[in-house]
């Protein structure tokens, strides 16, 4: 069966090409789809799409709508207003949804992450925030991530390495939970096996800036929902997919596992 992946975009989304490329390199059919293709009546028939045309949705990196107001806020509000029902259904049925960088911000603003409630995969309002980096600057730099998921996340099941290197490039990536409830959130995340990646230094120790590039709580770089099929992370696996992207001689590199895992998951179940 052909695995079909939609990489969603609006104005300012700008990592769609390399994200599509990553899926295609592994034999899936992936295409960039403008949000309007899902709902707008000005779109011509041959370009109209439905979310049910796909097995996997990806919110890629970039600056959707300029990241004005807040990173990801406008894209997520637009998704919520036109696609909420479908998307909730999509997640409930177990189809995977991935958010990279700006995509993670969108999933958080959407209320799809941390996604504690399996029956209501999109909360009415955001449960966490990706706030401005402690450095108060946009930073583009390589980061080391420790993979801590015990098997729930469908996007990292094929990942056998303990530490991977994916670069980050963002100004708003600091994980913040509601004040005073951080420990409670953390416990739930750990218990539910929702923590996927944490920033570490080259030796694998949890460390502060620059190894934790934004000041994230508990060094969190990426989490999944309680079901394991919605995954968001600040670092960019699609920028570390091929060896040549990171100065390595190997043909492929750490980023590949994210895409491979989800394709494998889909092949098995659908």
């Amino acid at each position, binding site marked *: 069966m052909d695995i079909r992946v939609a990489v969603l975009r609006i104005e300012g989304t700008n990592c769609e090409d390399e994200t599509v490329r990553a899926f295609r390199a592994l034999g899936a059919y992936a295409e960039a789809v403008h949000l309007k293709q899902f709902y707008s009546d000005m779109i011509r028939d041959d370009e109209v799409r439905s979310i049910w045309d796909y097995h996997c949705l990806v919110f890629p990196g970039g600056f959707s709508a300029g990241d004005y*107001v*807040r990173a990801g*806020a*406008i894209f997520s*509000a637009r998704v*919520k*207003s036109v696609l909420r029902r479908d998307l909730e259904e999509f997640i409930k049925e177990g189809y995977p949804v991935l958010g990279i960088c700006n995509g993670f911000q969108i999933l958080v*603003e959407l209320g799809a992450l941390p996604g504690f409630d399996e029956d209501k995969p999109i909360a009415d*309002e*955001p*449960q*966490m*925030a990706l*706030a*401005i*980096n*402690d*450095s*108060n600057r946009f930073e583009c730099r390589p980061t080391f991530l420790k993979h801590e998921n015990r098997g729930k996340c469908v996007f990292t099941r094929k990942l056998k390495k303990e530490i991977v290197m994916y670069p980050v490039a963002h100004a708003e990536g600091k994980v*913040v*939970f*509601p*004040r005073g409830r951080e420990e409670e959130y953390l416990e739930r995340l750990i218990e539910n096996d929702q923590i996927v990646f944490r920033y570490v230094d080259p030796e694998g120790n949890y460390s502060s800036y620059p190894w934790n590039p934004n*000041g994230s709580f508990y060094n969190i770089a990426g989490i999944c929902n309680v079901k394991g099929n919605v995954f968001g992370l600040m670092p960019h696996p699609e920028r570390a997919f091929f060896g040549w992207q990171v100065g390595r001689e190997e043909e492929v590199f750490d980023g590949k596992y994210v895409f491979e895992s989800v394709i494998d998951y889909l092949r098995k179940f659908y």
Partner: protein
Amino acid sequence: MIAEVYIKLKEGVSDPEGEATKKALNLLGFKNVKRVSSVKVFRIAIEGVSREEAEKEIEEMCKKLLANPVIHDYDIRWVG
């Protein structure tokens, strides 16, 4: 009608922008500056509804888009 919507960080949420601005001001020689916090304001011109309804709509806008309740408080002031 014009409303100003203030989006502030909640008490206790760190404010790197305010801190960086304070540091820069201190470096420029403004030693009396003890604290800076940054606030985002949207001036919204709204028409064709009563002020009451408008206020309700703006509340909605804050909830749907302008603020994230985990880190923000908001505040609406009518200026025209």
